[in-house]
């Protein structure tokens, strides 16, 4: 079985070489992405290489890292599905409530049963107050959640945190019912 990572690297190397050749020769040939080793995953850069009337135009291929980052950036604005429920917080508070404990036990049990797994804890706030303070409050909520899970025996290394402050409300409403839903920690499998 071919190692998929090696196959990817070969593919990228071949693409680079081909581009260098094409650039150097300035010939009227179209550079296609190469077929990689069987089983290798094709990267899909946005190639704008065209041939029109003998002219070559080209667009620099994004590196895999840049593309992955761009996708992560867009993904950051979207609600990610979770097999765990959100836990909720009191207004302007970050302490773990009683009603959060069942979910937290579930998360802890999952992580302890799957030592290779890791989870991103997102901290969120409702829309009241001001945005910068809410980033810090969301950060506290995420960290407070992480501490609680560690106290249940989860390895700290399995948990990472990010705050979205008031930027990503689950419920777009402007009443206490919506706000209560938005004061939360959200668990995302990484």
């Amino acid at each position, binding site marked *: 079985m071919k190692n998929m990572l090696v196959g990817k690297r070969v593919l990228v190397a071949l693409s680079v070489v081909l581009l260098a050749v094409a650039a150097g020769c300035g010939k009227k040939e179209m550079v296609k992405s190469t077929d990689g080793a069987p089983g290798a995953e094709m990267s899909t850069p946005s190639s704008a290489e065209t041939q029109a009337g003998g002219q070559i135009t080209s667009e620099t291929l994004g590196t895999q890292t840049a593309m992955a980052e761009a996708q992560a*950036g867009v993904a*950051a604005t979207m609600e990610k599905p979770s097999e765990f429920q959100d836990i909720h917080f009191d207004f302007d508070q970050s302490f773990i409530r009683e009603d959060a404990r069942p979910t937290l036990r579930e998360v802890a049990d999952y992580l302890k049963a799957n030592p290779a797994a890791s989870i991103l804890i997102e901290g969120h706030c409702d829309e009241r107050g*001001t*945005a*910068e*303070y809410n980033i810090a409050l969301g950060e*506290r909520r995420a960290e407070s959640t992480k*501490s609680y899970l560690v106290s249940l025996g989860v390895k700290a290394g399995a948990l990472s945190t*990010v*705050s979205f402050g008031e930027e990503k409300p689950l419920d777009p409403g402007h009443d206490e019912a919506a706000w209560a839903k938005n004061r939360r920690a959200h668990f995302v499998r990484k």
Partner: protein
Amino acid sequence: MIRFAKPLLLSLLFLCLPSVSGALLYIDINAPGGKLMPVALPDFVVASGDASLARGFPEAIGGDLGMTSLFDVLPRQAHLERIVPEHFGGRPLSFPDWKMIGAEAVVIGKVEFRGDLMTVEMRLYDATLGNMMVGKKYAGPVRQFRKMAHKFANEVLYAFTGVRGIFDTEIAFSARPEKGRGKEIYIIGLDGQELRQVTDNRSFNLFPRWSPDAAGLAYTSYRTGVPQIYLRNLATGKERLLPQVGNSKSPGSFSPSGDFLYATLSVKGNSDIYRMSLTGSAVQKVAGGWGIEVSPSVSPDGKSVAFVSNRSGSPQIYVKEIDSSDERRVSQAGNYSTSPSWSPAGDRIAFTSLSGGRYSIYTVRPDGSDQRLAVSGSGDCVDPSFSPDGRYLVYTLRKNGYSELKIGSVDGRWQRGLFKGLPAVGSPSWSPRQ
């Protein structure tokens, strides 16, 4: 009555009657009340006959002068004399025509084109003495006409008051380009024109803050999936990623020299105030503790920093002397005060405070005394940012789920909507003088 300079000797020279020769028109910008200076802004002479440009200049200048509450711009319909190219070639204005309609000052202008380049000559006349108080010529692309008008309005204000105007400054802010997207950074002129988008990475881009030379913006972006602080050169578009210390991070304000950025960084869930070197890589904690500390705003002399801390149990505004490490609380009332903005004039700090169920904007002296309500409205007024002269605030008005940017004078005499063309506008930051 136009107020004149205070010293008795000068007041003997500058009489109230407008017909005394040798008297200069002068406005004390700090005098409350008083008669407005009537000024006429006739259509500019435009070589190509472009009517929109002929009127665009005086309208931009009039909008700027209106901000000051010092001028009364006379209606165009009242003008008796039409401005022609000869007025820029030696022919005097018919000053009796202008005085007859009550004008004490007249601004005229002429626009010429040479290919893509536009040259504009603008002149401010004292209608009583018939002398030119200030005259300027500008050259640039046609699309920069507003900027030229704003620069001349700065000159008009300076000619009357001895104080430099801020009419060519701009506001950076964050907004959602469309539903379902994150937020991007934008810049807009004070007149609500010339909106331009700065970022376009489809993630969350928040908290834009101007560098002291107005050449760059620091801001937080989630473009890699997690928040980082970027420093963007507005002219070249080049960006620099600042040291990735901590988890959440947001820029607060630059030091006056531009060598440091004061920022909020969070380490292990705890947000504190840090100072990040922009010439090296040093990152140093400036204020913090077990509580939440956020939103640093540096004084114009660089010696103190205002910030938010909830160490007392609720978020309040504190000031720290950077050298002595003395800290004091300066917000006086209520149980939620955030978003400090230190006036570039040094004398006051604006902030958001919750009172009576609504967020309003207050100002307070840096020593914590004389807290005053500056802006309140029918919704929440949050996130103030001072103009470079310390006379105006830009802020976000939120109500019923929508938000808009507004600007107003600190003394409350003047205000106007700035922008509401995009969802979720917020986090405005007023540029330094350019």
